[in-house]
């Protein structure tokens, strides 16, 4: 009995040790970025494991040395617009795909799934031509348009899964009362769909916020860049003089809102990811 008890305690210690290792592994790089962002000048070039100084100079200079406030605005504007548009197109399409049986539905879902697997590079030259033809080069509207290629299929796919699993009786009752499909969507499904909308909206937001390839290729001036591009292109006088303090401060500014969102909505995000991947 004593031996078994001993082994259980040992197992518990092992488990908690593993947990600590996992937390350190997951959180340390971000912790170190915060730490570095608070150091200026020569302090940066000394390795510290614990907070040494609380100097917010980098957070000021990152806004002074480039139009970072403008870049932040660009990212927020583009991401919100992308979320709103993909949710609008997503909900209407998901109603059709999730609630109505019609011929060609399987092929449509297959196509949508296929598009979500598109490598972005595969459409790069065609998209470039299209954006220039619409006069949207170096314009945020061009980015919003281009981002639909990866947010829309995903949104439709996940919302269809959610929509499909809602009880049929609700809709039947509304149909008996003579409600039009649009009324059914807005009055019957939307109130039930909030969790799903929050989840997919959040995932679309994160995807748009993090996008790099299109933002890099379809914008030209500093003022039109989104934050990932701005951060990637922060450079110093030479390759060996990168302003690491500024880069880390910018990185922290961009990441903190996402981390907060993720901590608040972690359950929703996990359910959204599993609906998108495992179920699909």
């Amino acid at each position: 009995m004593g031996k078994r008890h001993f082994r259980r305690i040992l197992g518990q210690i092992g488990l908690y040790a593993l947990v600590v290792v996992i937390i350190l592994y997951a959180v340390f790089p971000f912790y170190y970025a915060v730490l570095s962002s608070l150091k200026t000048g020569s302090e940066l070039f000394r390795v510290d494991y614990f907070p040494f100084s609380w100097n917010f100079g980098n957070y000021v200079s990152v806004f002074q040395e480039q139009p970072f406030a403008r870049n932040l605005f660009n990212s927020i504007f583009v991401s919100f617009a992308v979320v709103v548009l993909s949710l609008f197109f997503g909900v209407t399409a998901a109603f059709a795909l999730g609630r109505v049986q019609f011929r060609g539905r399987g092929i449509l879902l297959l196509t949508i799934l296929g598009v979500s697997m598109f490598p972005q590079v595969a459409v790069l030259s065609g998209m470039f031509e299209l954006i220039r033809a619409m006069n949207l080069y170096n314009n945020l509207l061009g980015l919003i348009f281009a981002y639909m290629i990866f947010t829309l299929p995903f949104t439709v796919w996940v919302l269809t899964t959610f929509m499909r699993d809602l009880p049929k009786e609700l809709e039947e009752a509304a149909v008996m009362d003579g409600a039009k499909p649009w009324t059914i969507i807005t009055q019957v499904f939307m109130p039930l769909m909030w969790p799903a909308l929050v989840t997919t909206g959040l995932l679309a937001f994160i995807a748009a916020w993090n996008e790099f390839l299109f933002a890099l290729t379809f914008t030209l001036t500093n003022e039109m860049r989104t934050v990932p591009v701005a951060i990637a292109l922060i450079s110093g006088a030479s390759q060996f003089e990168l302003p690491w303090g500024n880069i880390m401060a910018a990185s922290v500014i961009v990441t903190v809102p996402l981390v907060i969102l993720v901590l608040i909505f972690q359950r929703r995000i996990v359910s959204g990811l599993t609906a998108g991947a495992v179920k699909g």
Partner: protein
Amino acid sequence: MSTTTRGTTTAPIEATAMGAATTKPQRSHLTRTRVRAAWIFLTPMLIVLAMVAGWPLARTIWFSFTDANLSDLGGAQFIGFANYLEYYDGMWFGVLADPDWWNSIWNTLYFAVISVTLEVIFGMAIALVLNSSFKGRALVRAAVLIPWAIPTIVSARMWGWMMNDQYGILNDMLMQMGFISTPLAWTANPDLVMISVVMVDVWKTTPFMALLVLAALQMLPGDCYEAAKVDGISPIKVFFKVTLPLIRPAVMVAVIFRLLDALRIFDLIYVLTSNSKDTMTMSVYARQQLVDFQDVGYGSAASTLLFFIVALCTVLYIYLGKVRFD
């Protein structure tokens, strides 16, 4: 997997029960209006999708057969398969004859296989830990999500700083622990760059894998574990004989999902190692031709090849994943 789809398999039974209850002519009228409404609701989405995906893809494929140049897309002339492969004056030209392209395919495959393998192993380990009960489990699950939430560019920059050859904390740690005696140039040394890229990618995407595996683990029936416990079977044996076969379908889908993602990787490599030959992937190669060298025809040929490689894998995914459309 079976529990996930249970909700949908019962749906047709309900539907037939309902269908029997309603009178026939009324239903067919209702059905017709519903189908018409469905197409009306689908149209906006389909138009957008055709505009952002269908048309640009078709144009890219068309460009791959032309000598299009970035500064003059309109003046593109049809040149057949010359961008892909052409024999001219005793020499082979085109993407398929370019050693750099084959090198980038090799790099992409190498990166995809190694990083996804590591992600599966680590992801499963983390999922198993998160699946056991301990204090503060919700907190750990949130912490694990942090790397996933961090933008790829930011993680590339963060790790680029940590892996800095002179001031990086990674070299400092390894030296203090006595693993290395001199600092390593993680992002410059040709033998190390790929390892660095894999390291960052594994850090960033393991959470995704862990959460998907965790979701599969939490759907497993508890009774077979009870039985194994009563019979005194060792936990390792239980894992390989019971858990692994049960979660295999979910893991397979997650793996293929991740593989497809890894095959098109661009941003991490672009920022961490720029245009280094040692890490150049298919996406980086294609964009370099398209934008840096302005050769849209040639770059589009590379893009088109990448598209067909990924399309092939997608078909494999749909086939292996036994994706359901009902």
